[in-house]
């Protein structure tokens, strides 16, 4: 029961995150969408670990990996935004159609 609720919530978070990542024109808002999807993933991992693994520690490890991925995504995302903004004065996704130059 608990696991079903948690997984439905995770599915909703991933759905909203996907909508945001696809629809937002601003690069930072797009990253928010990605973060929301990772949030859903984290919720699902925690749910599965808590209800399905009888306390095997590897499940928690997976959650740690999701958090590390979030950190990497944030750091590189912001660095890219800064780099592109320096050159193009914009943080819109369509202006990053090419990363050449």
């Amino acid at each position: 029961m608990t696991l079903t609720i948690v997984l439905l919530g995770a599915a909703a978070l991933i759905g909203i995150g996907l909508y945001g990542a696809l629809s937002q024109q601003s690069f930072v808002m797009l990253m928010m969408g990605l973060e929301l999807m990772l949030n859903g993933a984290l919720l699902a991992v925690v749910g599965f670990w808590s209800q399905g693994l009888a306390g095997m520690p590897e499940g928690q490890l997976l959650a740690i990996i999701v958090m590390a991925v979030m950190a990497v995504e944030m750091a590189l995302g912001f660095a890219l935004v800064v780099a592109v903004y320096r050159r193009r004065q914009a943080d819109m996704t369509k202006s990053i159609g090419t990363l050449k130059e």
Partner: protein
Amino acid sequence: MAIGWLSRLAAATPPPVFAAVGPGLLPATERLLARPTLRRCGSPREAAILLVAGTIPEPAGAALDRVHDQLPHPRASFDWDGGGDAEAAIGALWRGLLGGGASEPDRLPDEPPNSWRGEGDHGQGGEGMMGGVPYGRPMAMTGDDLRDGLSLDLYTARIGPFAPMLPPGLQLSATLQGDLVVTAAVARPPFEQPAEADAPEACAARLLRLLGLGGDADRLLRGGRPRGLGALAAIPTGLAADAQGGDARARLRAWLGGEMVDVVCPDPGDLLVGLEWHEATLALASFPPSALRRATQAAEAA
């Protein structure tokens, strides 16, 4: 009844005072506010009593009215000519306010500078997504950061003439990027102050206050010795260099040693560009008021 109990409790606190200092009364006001029986406020929002020291010259009158209206109710203002027992008078005003005395009404109409109802495509008066003057409010435009060239939004404002961190009367027209001063110009020079304002302990006290040592500043003004540590080390070397080769730190050292400092201040506009706001306030306070006034007048004449 609960209010009455609160007022009785509050009546024994030092009255919170915000000072708008006019020409000639800077040293007297500083000494007055260094007394433990008055509480010096850093912002008009904190104060109940507006201390108007001296006669405020006309161009600053509107600014004074704005400061007056920023005080929360119940409020009172006290015009001071430098004489008499100001402490007792302010105390009486404060107790009068707590005892249910009438609060002063606003001097200026309380309405936004431009109404929020605009015109244009969407009723906001702007153009497209970024342009125009929506609702009469200028849009921030980007400009290059002096430090690393990232073009972000600039903020341009007039600060003064009663801003507590600047010399009284000085009105700066500054463009800030974050807290970095990108351009600065003197809109109005500081008010003329008597020679006492250049006294070493008064000048040192102004710098110490900006360095977060308010208690030390008051002790100095009352004739005591400062106890704080690291005041000299806290000022960056080379800040606000003068033509004689000294800098802010050297001047503070001289003032703390009880020496008068006689320097020529460079044009404040050039002095402040490229400094962080905290450094800029330190740079302005590191010159004696008379030197700063001469420099701003010279810049105006040029």
